[in-house]
């Protein structure tokens, strides 16, 4: 499989429970060596989709392939090349972290114990659990379980990592560390991870899919998805007669909408425009022609994933 090829591809993948579609006709495309952020609100169908890819649940319809292999027929072969971190990772409580990693390694390798142990040590170091390696897992915090989960998923250096909310249970420092680990996997693996932490996606993902009520609301590179939110808007803070300011702006051909959030004698205008060039060149001038108005702040709004996400999830993509 070469660069640019798809590691995961699904076609009309569907899962229904009692006649209700939890996942509807999903057409996922995960490019090789991407860090693919799988976004969606709770209950959107992210975990169900991941479990179908892993062969833990059977699709009700459609098809899916990973590495070109069928997710139903070839599931064991696929799982030999995948690492998986469950949403709330639970391991055998009578085992320590070291024993858990040995157990996980035992599904992939045979050979001298020293060889397995060396690999286990490397994974413990990767996630910073060396000093807790021999503690019983039942004493682990949520964050430590999450780290152990990442280590066991990576124990065989898989071609694809499927991580279900890898940073959800972590504090900000833990999240930062996990994101750094994910970025480190980019060279050797493809990372398919679900999350609802949009900042994380914008920081590390190069490709995203937004899932809402079991359907894809948007999918593509981060740049494409952000560009998909093609509204150009400016935030302008003014003092003075806000009504006259609004009227002056609406008189411009390149202004489509002006909304006002007033605070005493000041207000913030949100001005949406068709073209940023005349807006950059003339907007402040139009306002300052009225000598009663003072412009205290003027900036173009940057489109971020959060706005796109909210627009997509709340804005009618709920079919």
């Amino acid at each position, binding site marked *: 499989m070469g660069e640019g090829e798809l590691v995961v591809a699904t076609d009309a993948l569907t899962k229904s429970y009692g006649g209700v579609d939890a996942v509807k006709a999903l057409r996922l495309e995960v490019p090789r060596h991407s860090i693919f952020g799988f976004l969606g609100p709770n209950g959107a169908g992210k975990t169900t989709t991941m*479990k179908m890819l*892993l*062969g*833990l*649940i*059977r699709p009700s319809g459609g098809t899916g392939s990973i590495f070109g292999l069928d997710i139903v027929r070839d599931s*064991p*072969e696929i*799982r*030999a*090349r*995948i690492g*998986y971190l*469950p949403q*709330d*990772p*639970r*391991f*055998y409580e*009578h085992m320590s972290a070291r024993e858990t990693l040995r*157990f*996980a390694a*035992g*599904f*992939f*390798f*045979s*050979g*001298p114990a*020293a*060889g*397995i142990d*060396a*690999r286990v040590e490397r994974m413990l170091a990767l996630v910073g659990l060396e000093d807790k390696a021999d503690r019983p897992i039942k004493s682990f915090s949520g964050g430590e379980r999450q780290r152990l989960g990442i280590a066991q998923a990576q124990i065989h*250096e*898989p*071609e694809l990592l499927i991580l279900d909310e890898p940073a959800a249970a972590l504090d900000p420092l833990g999240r930062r560390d996990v994101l750094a680990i994910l970025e480190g996997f980019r060279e*050797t693996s493809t990372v398919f991870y679900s999350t609802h932490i949009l900042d994380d996606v914008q920081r590390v993902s190069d490709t995203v899919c937004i899932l809402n009520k079991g359907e894809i609301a948007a999918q593509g590179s981060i740049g494409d998805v952000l560009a998909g939110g093609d509204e150009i808007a400016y935030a302008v803070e003014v003092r003075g007669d806000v009504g006259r300011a609004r009227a002056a702006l609406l008189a411009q051909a390149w202004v489509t909408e002006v909304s006002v959030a007033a605070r005493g004698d000041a207000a913030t205008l949100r001005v949406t425009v068709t073209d940023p060039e005349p807006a950059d060149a003339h907007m402040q001038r139009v306002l300052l022609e009225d000598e009663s108005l003072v412009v205290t702040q003027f900036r173009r709004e940057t489109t971020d994933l959060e706005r796109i996400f909210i627009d997509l999830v709340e804005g009618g993509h709920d079919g």
Partner: protein
Amino acid sequence: MASGDVAGLVRLDERGWRRGMTNLMRAGFGAWWRTSTWWVQALLWTAVINGSLAVVIWGDAPDDVSAFTLFGVMTMFAAIAVAIVMQEAIVGEKRSGTAAWVLSKPTSRTAFMLSKLVPNAVGALATMLVIPSAATLLHLAVAGVEVSPLRFALGVTVAALNLLFYLTLTLMLGTLFNGAGPVIAVPLAFAFGQQLLGPAVTAYLPWSLVVPVGGAESSVIGAIIGGEPVETSAAIVVTAVACVVFTVVAFWRWARTEL
């Protein structure tokens, strides 16, 4: 894909239903034998069975037949305890997510189920029956009770069948239900409810292996150890067939379970 970067490691090449079996079996046996479970269970059941027998053997009116029958009754408690120990094996793993985690690895569902059945059967039989029974044989010898080691071994084999009945029943229920309630309640209700069905029916059920029914002096186990005629041997066949049916249903159901 990188194949182990450490000298000597090779990628496993197991295929089909045996995929992942070695690793799962190692973990399954380890849960019994590399933890305190084995000696705690062995100690507990050795004390329970032999403590009860001591009352009969060392009492004012020692009675061999009563001792053999009591031995059978006490093994029934071990069999019921298996249901309690085993109820977590499938349901607990389904609920905690460890089953989904393990099955996300390259392993077959058959291997997973075998790793629950075989290590637990071996562990339970060894620690809850064989070790305590060996102590019982020694106990009987010290007390001067004459017993044929061969007949005693046959009696223990029937007790093992009774234990396997509850083990496979619990395993099957674990695949059928998602809550621990029915998985523990059904074996307990069956264990103690059999006697209410009347001797004509009970004679065919596992109950008659361990408790005398229908006016018989001995249970099947007591009769075998005591060298008496076995009056309700059909129960042995019924119990064995039930074990097979429970096991087949458990494997069939597990193959279709969504996690």
